[in-house]
């Protein structure tokens, strides 16, 4: 998908005016924090496990090359094939090639952010292969021609009537007068329709929450069971994963799994956590005949050497999205690309570059709630500040905001000049010049929805000096 992150301010206006989206966001607002607290309550050792999860992810990043090589060797030892893809184009080509070699006409997909990142669906369609999203949320937005708006709940912005409308439009051959009111009716129809697709698929593509170096296993964490039907029924199983997803051992994976679901749905574990290692064995009664892992770099290796490196710890739980007031106000589409919320704001500048993505790093109060709930303690405010520093060095923001900040910093280093300016400002504010001041470019944003503060007419420092002389 073509990013629109550069148009974030316009996206925001649209999102704030979108009644249906705002209702959906209001519905979910209190849910995520509540569920996380419920999840944590079932693990008294949560903070200790969280510390260990953080240490595991940092350890892997320090040795990412070694762990990737070990992972790849183990995949191959188990009878799988690894495709090392430096960028999105290479990954698209690898997936297409696998599908064409398999003579695939239809492909089922479990949820994969990497799939979105490389826009694999468009690529397959362009070559006459039909990709079918099977995660219910992803399926709904595929029918609607939309991008996901949340990494765990991709159809968060879609209402029940909108789902029904999409089903009526796209599920041909079903009686027109059939009831599609209740969620149960919608779910049963989706199950039946997608069941046929699962069974017909030649290739199944899934993502991976983690890659286990010890055994060459990939693992997915789901609640629906679609990821499992996607990877078990077709002849070929393809895993799309970015390079930083590696963990050393099954024990390390278990540690991370103890904090992942708790942080977002409040579950101790999701309904299905599945570890896949190679293709079916000679005596297996079912399972794919071929197993491929497509490893994608696409800029992540470069991030390793920057202060933004810690975003590579991310295990895609979605907790930060669920606690962020900015995400809560505008939803995921406003961010303009695949990754939204705080993790999206921290990662996207690294993958797309600052000219495209700098708004995302600036549209934050640095409140720190994301970092407070991240199971692997990613210091997102510090990473956003790093991107801001990069922007600043490259001249953004320019114009009046830059001038204003530089003037302020100049004054702040010159106490006498500073006191003269503040004394004048205090007098002007008192004299009712407030409204006029507020119309200064840049400050108009304040007065649109807030009254100006009433000043005392002089500064504290001036009053303090005066009182000192009175004594």
């Amino acid at each position: 998908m073509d990013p629109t992150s550069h148009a974030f301010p316009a996206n925001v206006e649209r999102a704030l005016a979108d009644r249906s989206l705002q209702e959906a966001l209001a519905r979910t607002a209190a849910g995520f924090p509540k569920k996380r607290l419920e999840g944590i309550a079932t693990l008294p050792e949560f903070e200790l496990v969280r510390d260990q999860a953080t240490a595991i992810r940092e350890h892997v990043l320090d040795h990412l090359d070694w762990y990737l090589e070990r992972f790849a060797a183990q995949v191959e030892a188990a009878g799988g094939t690894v495709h090392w893809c430096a960028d999105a184009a290479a990954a698209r080509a690898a997936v297409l090639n696998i599908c064409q070699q398999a003579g695939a006409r239809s492909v089922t997909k479990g949820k994969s952010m990497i799939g979105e990142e490389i826009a694999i669906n468009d690529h397959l369609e362009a070559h006459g292969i039909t990709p079918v999203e099977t995660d219910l949320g992803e399926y709904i937005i595929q029918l609607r021609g939309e991008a996901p708006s949340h990494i765990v709940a991709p159809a968060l912005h879609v209402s029940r009537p909108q789902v029904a409308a999409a089903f009526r439009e796209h599920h041909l051959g079903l009686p027109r007068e059939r009831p599609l009111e209740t969620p149960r009716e919608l779910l049963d129809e989706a199950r039946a329709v997608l069941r046929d697709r699962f069974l017909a698929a030649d290739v199944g593509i899934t993502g991976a929450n983690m890659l286990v170096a010890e055994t060459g296993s990939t693992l997915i964490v789901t609640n629906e069971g679609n990821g499992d039907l996607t990877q078990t029924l077709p002849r070929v199983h393809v895993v799309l994963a970015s390079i930083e997803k590696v963990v050393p051992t099954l024990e390390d994976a278990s540690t991370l799994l103890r904090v992942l679901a708790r942080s977002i749905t409040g579950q101790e574990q999701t309904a299905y956590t599945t570890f896949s290692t190679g293709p079916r064995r000679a005596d297996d009664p079912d399972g794919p005949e071929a197993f491929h892992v497509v490893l994608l770099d696409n800029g992540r290796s470069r991030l390793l050497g920057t202060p933004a490196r810690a975003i590579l710890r991310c295990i895609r739980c979605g907790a930060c999205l669920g606690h962020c007031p900015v995400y809560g106000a505008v939803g995921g589409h406003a961010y303009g690309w695949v990754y939204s919320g705080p993790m999206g704001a921290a990662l996207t500048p690294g993958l797309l570059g600052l000219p495209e993505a700098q708004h995302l790093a600036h549209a934050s109060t640095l409140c720190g709630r994301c970092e407070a709930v991240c199971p692997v303690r990613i210091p997102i405010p510090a990473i956003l500040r790093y991107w801001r520093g990069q922007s600043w060095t490259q001249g953004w923001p320019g114009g009046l905001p830059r001038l204003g900040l530089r003037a302020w910093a100049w004054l702040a280093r010159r106490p006498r000049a500073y006191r003269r300016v503040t004394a004048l400002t205090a007098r002007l504010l008192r004299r009712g010049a407030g409204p006029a001041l507020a119309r200064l470019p840049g400050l108009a944003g304040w007065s649109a929805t807030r009254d100006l503060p009433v000043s005392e007419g002089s500064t504290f420092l001036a009053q303090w000096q005066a009182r000192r002389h009175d004594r």
Partner: protein
Amino acid sequence: MSGREQILARIRDALGRGPLDAAGAATLAARLQAPSANRLPAASRGDRATLLRRFAAKVRRAEATLVPLETLAEVPQAVAQRFPQADAVRVAPHPDLASLAWPAAGLAASLGPARADDRLGVSRAYAAVAESGTLVLCSGPASPTTLNFLPDCHVVVVHAADVAGAYEAVWARLREQADSAAFLPRTVNWITGPSRTADIEQTLYLGIHGPRQLHVLLVGTGLVELLEEGG
């Protein structure tokens, strides 16, 4: 330069070093050779009775049902009781299950991987984990993975002796029981409750793509009494 070489070179460049030296690599390799558990929660510990009760409670909390049985022989009747409308059952070709008295319970049993229209499937778990009420199923000739996902309703038979406190004990058991370095099967499924989604207006509903209902039969001597007295 291949994609592999490119990626590894970029990683090393970013980390400010070349490939790990022999000593560094040996340290990492040793860690992988002898995997050890990180911090295990208190919920994974306890005597047999405590763990079994906790397992049952957590299974039920995850919206599955659980019934304790004294012996395997009781399984077909227990399945028929739980699913009175069923007249056929697809059974994993496991020695524990294959020769049970299914017809006597009114169930026509067939063995093998699941088919598209199977309404009721029965598997035998490799292990289970008390700390979260999780079943562990491993793919193999006696344990087709499709049975875990295609049928409408899924029954899983678990031996009490196979209930571990923590996930880590199950990995250890898999490693011990393997006769080669490749100790993992194609698929290891951790199953905690039936299939569910909250994708329709963020409200939770059970039964989307995987089984709508999950029923656990926990088999072991003295279990009925144990689970009843503990509640």
